[in-house]
């Protein structure tokens, strides 16, 4: 019975091989019903035929929406059932049975779809298909197809992935020379699947030829070295990325706390407001200017900055002004402000997190290796934080406002005597600090969910950055932020995320004992 079916399939395959054709009702039936071996043979036949129009049906099979009743095949979509042969909407017969796919069947389907999609004119689809194919255990059935695709492929990246797949299949091929060649080639790969293939070949029951074996071993070693290198590079990158987020979060604090001596516990809430401002702008663009959606971030940046700066100035004028010289009270009052802002956002936007979509140019990333992808949004934030840093530095060191701010913070009464409006400078400086917090919010909205508690998760960390870097030192803040980001990420590799964070906090606490003024604080005649 089984053998008979296979023979039938093989005969059919032979009959139709090489000729372009659309799926027939009989093909669909063969793909959907019957013995798994027979169905897999049918899949192989479809793949060999290289017909891209079969992809939708294969996908339907994969997501379990294909039903069989008698000799008819139906596709039960989300809202309608269609006859697979005619595409006409029909009622699903009561005796329709589900097509059940086991894991083996699924992986066959996945690689079949990928193989067919390799012929798509769209580079992105081809790349996706190639990667999916590499992910699945592509068998001999796809070798010819992959080889052909590799030959015609114009895009070098897709080509190299295809090359890997081909080499992976050839590695267990019959010809020793081909195997040697494949082992050599795979040494240049960084894909985890390819590494697995090499490892399997070295195990008993795999490669027997000593020459090939040796080559595989050395390729494996080269691959591991490269993987380890990329992994370290990846940690450095994520560390820098975390550091740049911390830098953004701490920059505003470095102004309000470091320069003005005002401890602002509502700083986290300012970031949260900046993130919600981004959310609002994003929504506005989605609804009213969808064709400009990719540019919404450029609008969100000034909106968030101005909004939080104004709120900051209002707070400074109404509350914080009365508490200068009383830092502990300022801490408590600003905490209270933070609570109110948090609850306000909850009342307006709800307690649930909201999602902010990245603009198109920020999704995706640069793939340097299979285990090292630099996401564009992270890259953008690194660039963004450095830009903000540069602007803040320029503002404080090269403008009159900066001169006044520094004058007021160093000697308030003297600055007042020489005609600086100290009250106004305080408001401007606090507004600037809050505005920078708003900018941090824009960045945070690009890498995670936005919720009313967003600020509280960053407040401890950003204070640690300022404390560690030394009060009143922009350079210290930068080193401390990037250093903390890197140390955190490196520790994560050994201890896990939570423990790493605890270790970092403990390290800071111990470090502060040694240098209470922070790493970069100036020594001076301290006035008690």
């Amino acid at each position, binding site marked *: 019975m089984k053998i008979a079916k296979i023979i039938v399939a093989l005969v059919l395959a032979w009959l139709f091989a090489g000729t372009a054709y659309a799926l027939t009702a009989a093909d669909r039936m063969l793909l959907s019903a019957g013995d798994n071996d027979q169905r897999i043979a049918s899949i192989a036949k479809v793949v060999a035929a290289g017909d891209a129009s079969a992809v939708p049906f294969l996908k339907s099979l994969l997501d379990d929406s294909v039903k069989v009743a008698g000799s008819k095949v139906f596709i039960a979509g989300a809202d309608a059932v269609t006859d697979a042969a005619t595409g006409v909407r029909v009622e699903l017969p009561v005796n329709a049975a589900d097509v059940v796919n086991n894991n083996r069947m699924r992986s066959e389907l996945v690689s079949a779809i990928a193989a067919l999609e390799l012929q798509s004119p769209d580079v992105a689809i081809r790349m996706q298909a190639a990667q999916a194919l590499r992910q699945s255990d592509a068998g001999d059935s796809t070798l010819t197809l992959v080889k052909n695709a590799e030959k015609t492929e114009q895009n070098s990246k897709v080509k190299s992935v295809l090359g890997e797949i081909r080499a992976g299949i050839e590695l267990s091929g019959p010809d020793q020379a081909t195997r040697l060649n494949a082992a050599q080639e795979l040494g240049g790969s960084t894909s985890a699947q390819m590494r697995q293939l090499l490892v399997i070949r070295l195990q008993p029951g795999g490669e027997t030829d000593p020459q090939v074996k040796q080559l595989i071993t050395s390729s494996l070693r080269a691959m591991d070295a490269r993987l380890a290198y990329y992994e370290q590079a990846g940690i450095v990158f994520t560390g820098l990325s975390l550091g740049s987020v911390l830098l953004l979060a701490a920059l505003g604090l470095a102004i309000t706390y470091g320069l003005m001596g005002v401890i602002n516990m509502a700083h986290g809430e300012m970031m949260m407001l900046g993130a919600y401002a981004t959310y609002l702008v994003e929504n506005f663009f989605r609804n009213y200017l969808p064709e400009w959606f990719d540019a919404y971030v450029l609008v969100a940046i000034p909106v968030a900055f101005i909004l939080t700066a104004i709120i900051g100035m209002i707070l400074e004028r109404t509350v914080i002004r009365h508490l200068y010289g009383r830092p502990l009270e300022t801490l408590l009052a600003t905490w209270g402000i933070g609570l109110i802002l948090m609850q306000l956002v909850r009342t307006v936007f709800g307690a649930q997190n909201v999602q902010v979509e990245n603009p198109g140019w920020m999704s995706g990333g640069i793939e340097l290796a299979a285990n090292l992808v630099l996401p564009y949004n992270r890259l953008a934030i690194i660039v963004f934080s450095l830009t903000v840093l540069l602007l803040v530095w320029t503002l404080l060191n090269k403008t009159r406002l900066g001169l006044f701010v520094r004058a007021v913070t160093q000697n308030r009464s003297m600055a007042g005597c020489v005609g600086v409006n100290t009250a106004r400078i305080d408001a401007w400086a606090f507004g600037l600090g809050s505005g920078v917090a708003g900018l941090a919010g824009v960045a945070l909205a690009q890498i995670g969910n936005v919720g009313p508690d967003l600020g509280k998760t960053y407040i401890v960390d950003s204070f640690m950055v300022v404390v560690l870097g030394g009060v009143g030192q922009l350079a210290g803040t930068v080193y401390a932020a990037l250093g903390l980001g890197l140390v955190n990420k490196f520790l994560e590799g050994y201890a896990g995320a939570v423990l790493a964070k605890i270790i970092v906090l403990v390290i800071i606490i111990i470090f502060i004992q040694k240098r209470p003024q922070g790493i970069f604080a*100036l*020594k*001076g*005649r301290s006035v008690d």
Partner: protein
Amino acid sequence: MISDNFTGSQATGGSHLLQPGVLDSSHGVVLYLEDITVSFDGFRALNKLSFSVDVGELRCIIGPNGAGKTTMMDVITGKTRPDSGSVFFGQTLDLSRMTEPQIAQAGIGRKFQKPTVFEQHTVFENLELALKTDKRIWHSLFGKLKGEERDSIHEILSTIALLEKTNTRAGLLSHGQKQWLEIGMLLAQQPLLLLLDEPVAGMTDQETERTAELLNTLAGKHSIVVVEHDMDFVASIARKVTVLHEGSVLAEGDMNKVQNDEKVIEVYLGR
């Protein structure tokens, strides 16, 4: 009263005992600074400063702003550690290795430029806290004020003319009264060496006169170092004057000699 604390020449062999309260001033020198250098981020506040104060001497220190007067006080009282050089209390106590409380207990009292008293406490409590006694926790928790201690507080109260204010909160005193209270607190500590940073700043002429009187009576019993800007006041108390300039000693001698010193005139008037 003071001489009880001078232990004579029992530790002259150059061995530097770090025992608070045990002082050896047998050589007649109570304070000895040598080659003290302190710098803050490249700025040299003190530059190889050397000078000494004899037992029972009243020394005035003058100098323009930034001459290093306050930094010198900080070094003596342990607030600032010198980068190099040595500072000794008597022959044996290396002040650069002692903490502020240890130095205070060893017998150095300091009055700040800005009067620093405990504003929330009464005048009496201020003096009680300053009183020379066991200052460890246990004694503070369970110790009682002895009759003679009470007497000495009252004695000081009358010396500093604050008897009527005994139970007034120190924060409510006038500026001059705070200055006096602080001096009173120093007296209560029974120090061997008093460091006074501008003791008459903000005082009326009458108060200044009385302060001068007080210091004159204290000299001899205590060694006193006064930092002051008020030249008349300095003239009224000084026996020996040291002029500081840019972190080191510019001139030293009696008032007359100093006032006629070429370099001093240049520093004070030349610019």
